[in-house]
């Protein structure tokens, strides 16, 4: 494996971590939005606040990690993607800004009216963000970004693949969030809430599964390179996603929430890595390969040092934080 591929692989690991951990945070916006009225939805909204409150900022940093690695390791490809995909990037960014700020504001809102307002902004923007990030991925995967040409800022991403990418992103985020929340609710001793969440997550899971697998078909014409990858090299991942997705639905049916969480992560991670493996060796599909897009070798080596430091300095405390939030003590409300 060449140096370029190692760096690209670590960068893609960041994408995966963001899709799974950050995705679960975004997806909870759907359950917040559909929680019901002030009174009926209070328990679910409090649960969401407990579940994502301690972790969303840390999970959000995966995106920064990906951005920084991208522009350091593959600077020209980064500049090209930013240029062609400025609109979906900005719309995702708007969602990120509104999600983070309104989530923090809602927690300390002065009145129920304010909390309601910030809550709607939080929940809505939680769904907007993954859609546009997914659309961005779709544009890259379907070869809409070129290094030199100036693509139209609209037609570069208003394509079938981008729309599918956006829908898949939203669906997987919501599905993950449901699986996490249902497990959190049980650990917090809220069986009624868990039951409600279980039903909704089952519904979301069915729809998402349909979107993911039906969404493969238009790729054949709209993103032939990705299609070839998905039906070739990445086919095992597609199958794993299918099996793990089904297993998650089954586990939810029999109320094995802790295990369902695990299979859901496997399913979503397989979907996302299916895209990554499917478009190899391209960084920007049909335009520039990972190897050709790489910047200075010294910088790639430096990034490896940064990755090593991150593995030592960031991963242990991150694991500790995630473990803390999964303990029963943290799942219950503070006194």
């Amino acid at each position: 494996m060449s140096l370029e591929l190692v760096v690209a692989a670590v960068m893609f690991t960041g994408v995966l971590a963001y899709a799974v951990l950050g995705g679960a945070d975004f997806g909870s916006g759907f359950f917040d939005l559909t929680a019901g009225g002030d009174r009926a939805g209070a328990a679910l909204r409090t649960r969401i606040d407990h579940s994502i409150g301690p972790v969303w900022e840390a999970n959000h940093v995966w995106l920064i990690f990906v951005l920084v690695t991208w522009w350091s390791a593959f600077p020209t490809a980064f500049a090209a993607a930013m240029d062609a995909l400025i609109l979906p990037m900005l719309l995702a960014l708007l969602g990120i800004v509104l999600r983070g700020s309104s989530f923090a504001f809602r927690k300390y809102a002065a009145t129920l009216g304010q909390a309601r307002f910030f809550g709607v902004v939080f929940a809505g923007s939680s769904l907007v963000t993954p859609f546009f990030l997914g659309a961005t991925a779709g544009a890259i995967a379907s070869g809409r970004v070129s290094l030199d040409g100036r693509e139209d800022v609209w037609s570069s991403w208003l394509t079938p693949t981008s729309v599918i990418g956006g829908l898949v992103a939203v669906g997987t985020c919501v599905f993950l969030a449901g699986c996490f929340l249902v497990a959190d609710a049980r650990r917090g001793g809220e069986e009624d809430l868990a039951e409600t969440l279980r039903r909704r997550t089952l519904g979301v899971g069915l729809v998402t599964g349909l979107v993911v697998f039906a969404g493969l078909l238009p790729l054949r014409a709209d993103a032939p390179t990705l299609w070839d990858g998905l039906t070739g090299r990445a086919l095992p991942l597609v199958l794993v996603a299918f099996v793990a997705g089904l297993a998650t639905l089954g586990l939810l049916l029999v109320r094995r929430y802790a295990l369902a969480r695990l299979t859901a992560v496997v399913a979503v991670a397989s979907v996302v890595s299916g895209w990554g493996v499917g478009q190899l060796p391209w960084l920007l599909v049909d335009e520039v390969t990972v190897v050709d897009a790489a910047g200075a070798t010294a910088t790639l080596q430096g990034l490896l040092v940064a990755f090593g430091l991150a593995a030592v300095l960031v991963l242990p405390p991150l694991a500790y934080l995630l473990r803390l939030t999964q303990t029963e003590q943290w799942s219950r409300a503070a006194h």
Partner: protein
Amino acid sequence: MLTTLAPLLTTLASDVAGAAAEPAGLLPARQQMALSLGWHIVLACFGVALPTIIAVVHWRGAFRGDQGALLLAKRWGKVSAVLFAIGAVSGTVLGFEMGLLWPGLMGTFGDVVGLAFAFEGLSFFVEAIFLGMYLYAWGRMDPRHQFWMLVPMAVSGISGTFFILSVNAWMNAPVGFDIVDGEVVNIDPWAVFTNDQVWMQFLHMWLAAFMVAGFAVAAVYAAGMLRGRRDRHHRLGFMVPFAFATVAALMQPFVGHLLGLRVAETQPAKLAAFELALETESPSPLRLGGIVVDGEVVGSIDVPVLGSVIARNSFTEPVQGLDTIPPEDQPPVNVVHLAFQTMIGIGSLFVLVVLAFWGARWRGRDLLENRWFLRAVVACAPLSVVALQAGWIATEVGRQPWVVYGVMRTTEAAGDNSGLWWLLGATTVVYTAMTVGAVLVLRSMARRWRDGEEDLPSPYGPEPGDAEVEPAGAETAR
């Protein structure tokens, strides 16, 4: 280094045929950067300094049994939850903007400065993780154990400042690459951390962060004392941040002075603009105020020789005049001069305020009894933000027309997307809304605390007990 870059200048200049023509994306990108960076830097100050300030009160509370101090730590922690959240998202905005607004800069030099951003990202990662633990540990963890969550936050605040400032220092004094035939080659990504400017710029900003956060928090409790709330809670809430602000305010002039001396060597045009030196005079006067109108200085108060003393550490060395610098390489002089002197003026005022307090205390007088002193401290909070902004304006506008000094002009870094004006409009609206939201929430927090409510009621729905007495959808959470 710069001599090896000389050929590049001609190459790049010929690339942008008719360099006078500005790309359509330049002006909106500049305004956008000024708005988003100016907004974020205020929050970054809290992100850098607040964990350390909280650590002091938390330590007193956890290890000395001072319950009042622990209460302050808990409240400041909640405030920081709000500030860090909007700081995190506005920092992300900047990450995107580097690519969106300045494709020429990131496409060309992304791999030269990339490591600095990577390490800054690492620092932010650590801070975000431990922030999550600290905030949610209340009532779930022993306060003595919880204290240690603050330490990595404080350390990563320092390292994050260093790494991000190393990028800015690199823009002022670029290192770590060569230009051969217009191509960036021989990249040494580690050189960014050892460039000549980085330590001084880091110290300058680090101290500034403690001035902004220290004065802001102290001002809140000074305002409380002005309204007659003169209890121990307010005294402690004032003293801890004020002590931090004091140390920072007293050290800042020295660091600033050393930084200024470097500017004479590295960026004479910037220094000339700082000092409003249109011509080289030996010795140079210190020009207080004044602007340039039609090539003449108007309305300044000139103190002979002092300019040389302050800017060059000498009675004779002159400040190199702007007339020695080609017009196309000169920064906008008036903005730079006024911003620079605003920063210096406010910084000097801070020195007086903190010296007055500790001097009086040394002589047995407590200035917290003095309403005028309290008013002055309240004024210090917005003034510190003004000084912070003025300082950044002075150094950033003073570096113009270069984005990477002597290597790349800002016009070459910008794209030609005139649609960026829409972005600027939208950003203005969103940032205004975020500011309003933050102020609203922080004020309501303070109001509830004054009313004696410690744990805020769940804002997601009416309290279960209210069901009988209030109609559904009642407007208040209580």
